[in-house]
């Protein structure tokens, strides 16, 4: 009897038994991830800046880009940003149904954005302006495609979190996750500002 007692008393512990999140480190850690993601986009922007004028006797941005479509796309992403903001406000208030509603609206706007972007890509490729046409188009598809891929995964993440919130409610873990996605989603909107200013608008100006 005494032997077992000693055993349990001296049993070494290699892990923390209670969940431990030191002072908001998730925020900073996720911010560092976003900053590293920012560097990926910086490299892609630099690539586009260097080769964006090499058309290989092919079409130039002024021939290809349809600014009204880009304007609608930009509006979709901007709307999704503000609706995600509303979702966060509802989360702070503790309204589960309202949070889910605004997250769903955000997902819809994000999906429309991706749909329009795919429509644009398909049209470009159909016109013979695919990524293999010229250095400009390679850089364009890489930059805009990477952004679109980020938004796609953001939507997947959003739907996952909606399921989580619906199942477990607005528990601290889910709030933390929603906060991270919030940073990710707004960051993608920031990158899109660079894309529409630098690639689309300045491309059409020439």
């Amino acid at each position, binding site marked *: 009897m005494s032997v077992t007692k000693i055993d349990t008393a001296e049993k070494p512990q290699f892990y923390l038994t209670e969940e431990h999140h030191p002072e908001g480190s998730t925020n900073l850690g996720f*911010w560092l991830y976003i900053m590293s993601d920012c560097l990926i986009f910086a490299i892609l922007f630099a690539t586009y800046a*260097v080769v964006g004028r090499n058309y290989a*006797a092919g079409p130039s941005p002024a021939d290809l880009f349809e600014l009204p479509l880009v304007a609608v796309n930009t509006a979709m992403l*901007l709307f999704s940003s503000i609706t995600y*903001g509303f979702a966060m406000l509802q989360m702070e208030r503790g309204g589960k149904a309202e949070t889910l509603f605004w997250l769903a609206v955000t997902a819809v706007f994000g999906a429309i954005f991706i749909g329009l972007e795919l429509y644009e890509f398909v049209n470009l490729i159909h016109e013979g302006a695919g990524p293999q046409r010229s250095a400009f188009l390679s850089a364009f598809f890489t930059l805009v495609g990477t952004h679109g891929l980020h938004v796609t995964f953001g939507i997947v993440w959003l739907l996952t979190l909606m399921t989580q919130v619906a199942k477990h409610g607005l528990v601290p873990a889910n709030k933390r996750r929603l906060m991270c996605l919030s*940073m990710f989603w707004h960051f993608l909107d920031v990158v899109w500002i*660079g894309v529409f*200013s630098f690639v689309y608008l300045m491309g059409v100006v020439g």
Partner: protein
Amino acid sequence: MTTHSHTHDDHHGHSHDHHGHGGHEAAHGSFKSYMIGFVLSVILTAIPFWLVMADVFDSKSATVAAVMILGAVQIVVHMIYFLHMNTKSEGGWIMMAAIFTIVLVVICLTGSLWVMHHLNANMMTMSPEMMKNMP
């Protein structure tokens, strides 16, 4: 903003104290701040699109400069009103990481353009037509 975070602290302070509140403060916004950010973003998006689509300026460089400046301003607006960045969040480390990243981005962009420009300039001279036909 201060009153908001204060009530949050009161609400949660006794239930679980292991969760950092100083860090959470960074991600808080109010309806008003989100709307200010949204309205500013709409204005700052609409102006460059209008400038380009309606061909407002005669000179190209003026349009390009305006688009770039408005884009930069909008990025700052997003950082403040949507990403809730300030100098105090996470003890200043968020801002430090952001400044470090901005420095890296600037070095990367200007460095690439500078080096590649000189590379082009030192190659055989090219006419604009040849330049256009470059792969």
